[in-house]
């Protein structure tokens, strides 16, 4: 069993043609930890996730997964290690909800074999947990955006990987399901079964669930550390250029950020 960090990024850089998207990013993601990534639009969060899931490989620097260069893994191996909930969840063909969730099991099923009993059990269990079993035989194309996103989330969970990457994976869900899903992820993280890294636009949601935060700006990680330490008025001003009030909320049990409208405009 490997004891070191799950991900170790050293001076990672990436660019799309001439445009630099990531520049000298270094991060250590320890196991069984819920990380939140926060930053303005276009700061390189999705690019970072693409590198972590090895959809792209870094132009400079290295990424190690469990102590080994991530490029040394086969794509199939990684699919059993790292699941990604992407930002977009548009599906053009009328697969049923159940078929989509079952696709999450593909890395575990040989190419021409039918799904095993265990695969079907995992799928049923996850659909029940995410409360999508009520419409499991409906077509994905006739669901609402939020429902569709829950199905895509379920598909990633069905992969049963030790690492989960959420790229705004709850952006279209109502508050009930957002909490439901994040609770589930946090529960798995606290039980030591999972390491989660999530992009959040809602800073308060990030503060509520994540023990560690990484602030990104212009392709760099400018600040990282324990949420209790790095989340403060100064860091929010530096990253987003806005004023706010940061306080510890007893009801939430974590730091929260309050904003107010600018009346001077």
């Amino acid at each position, binding site marked *: 069993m490997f004891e070191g960090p799950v991900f170790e990024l050293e001076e990672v850089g990436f660019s799309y043609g001439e445009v630099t998207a990531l520049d000298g990013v270094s991060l250590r993601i320890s196991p069984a930890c819920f990380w939140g990534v926060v930053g303005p639009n276009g700061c390189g969060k999705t690019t970072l996730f*693409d590198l972590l*899931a*090895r*959809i792209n490989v870094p132009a400079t620097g290295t990424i190690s997964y469990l102590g080994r260069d991530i490029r040394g893994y086969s*794509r*199939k191996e*990684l*699919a*059993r290690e*790292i*699941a*990604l909930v*992407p930002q*977009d*969840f*548009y*599906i*053009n*063909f*009328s*697969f*049923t909800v159940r*078929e*989509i969730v079952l*696709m*999450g099991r*593909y*890395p575990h099923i040989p*190419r021409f074999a039918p799904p095993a009993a265990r695969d079907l059990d995992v799928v049923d269990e996850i659909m029940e947990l995410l409360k999508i079993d009520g419409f499991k035989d409906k*077509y994905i*194309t*006739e669901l609402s955006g939020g429902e569709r996103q829950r199905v*895509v989330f379920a*598909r*990633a969970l069905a*992969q049963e990987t030790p690492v989960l*990457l959420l790229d705004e994976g709850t952006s279209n869900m109502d508050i009930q399901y957002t909490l439901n899903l994040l609770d589930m992820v946090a529960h798995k993280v606290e039980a030591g079964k999972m390491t989660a890294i999530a992009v959040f636009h809602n800073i308060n949601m990030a503060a509520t669930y994540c023990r560690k935060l990484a602030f990104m700006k212009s392709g760099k990680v400018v600040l990282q550390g324990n949420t209790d330490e790095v989340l403060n008025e100064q860091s929010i001003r530096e990253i987003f250029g806005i004023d706010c009030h940061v306080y510890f909320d007893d009801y939430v049990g974590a730091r929260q950020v309050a904003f107010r409208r600018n009346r001077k405009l």
Partner: protein
Amino acid sequence: MAGRKGIFLLALLLVLVIIFSTGMGYIKISTLDVVKIIIARFYNDGHLLRGISNIFPYVIWEVRLPRILTSAIVGSGLSIAGVIFQGILLNPLADPYTLGISAGAAFGASIALILNISFLGMYSVPLFAFMGAVATLVVVMALSSSGGSVSSNNLILAGIIVAAILSAGISFIKYVADEQVSVIIFWLMGSFGSKGWPDVFLTFAFVLIGFGICIFFARDLNIMSLGDRSAFSLGVNTNRIRMTLLVTASLITAVCVAVSGIIGFVGLIIPHLMRFFVGPDSRKLLPASALTGAILLLSADTITRAVLPTEVPIGVLTALIGGPFFCYIFMKRRGVAGNV
């Protein structure tokens, strides 16, 4: 298991349609005689042919079967290509001709026809059509790819641009063609007349190998409908598979067009139709579409060959038969399947 039963029934239906249509035509041959003649050939048993006219085996073996089998194989090939194109372009409106393959083939054929190129005898035109199709594919791929990956939108756009240029070229050839213009137009509308065994073997080899490759990647094609990033994270190398399937489906299309001319509709409608019945899972959709496409195109060709008083271009007929049928299914299913 219901899927397998359906496939078996479709295969059975195809065999029956082949046998029945072999008996139909200017010279009527009873179904029993058709079966006897085919069996006699396979078992080299002359006794079975007793009481059957001498010309019947010739009619069946040298005239009808090659045409019938070619039309079935082409129908099958176009449908397979349709499933693949719709799948990799993530666009249910795509068909085997979306990337301009047909325009390329038509351009190649037009050149061969207008320049009267005949160094390969009757295979000159198909060869030029095939070369035109493959050249178009190469240009479209080069236009749309960047750094080893191709996006659906770029492919469709590149296909449209190239097809537009080629269409203008074809129009120009027609304009200067004078008397040969009718030959070109007739070729473009497609026909299975005077097909021989080489056509059968050629198309069969391409379609069979192509089908094998497609069915091998069918599961990956399913996953790719989740979008590239999800597919990647599920262990599917989308770039490599998209390229492989694109080339495979294009070559199937190229050989079909080269042999039969441009037969529209089949490649677009059959995958749709089958998606209504077996769903979008490529592992079921591919075999179901291949068999149904064969049945439909063979039936259409039999109607134009043996039922109608004069032969109507097959491309026209497929649309005339398939269109209303599709409308009916579409209206019936629209409420159930939502946005298909």
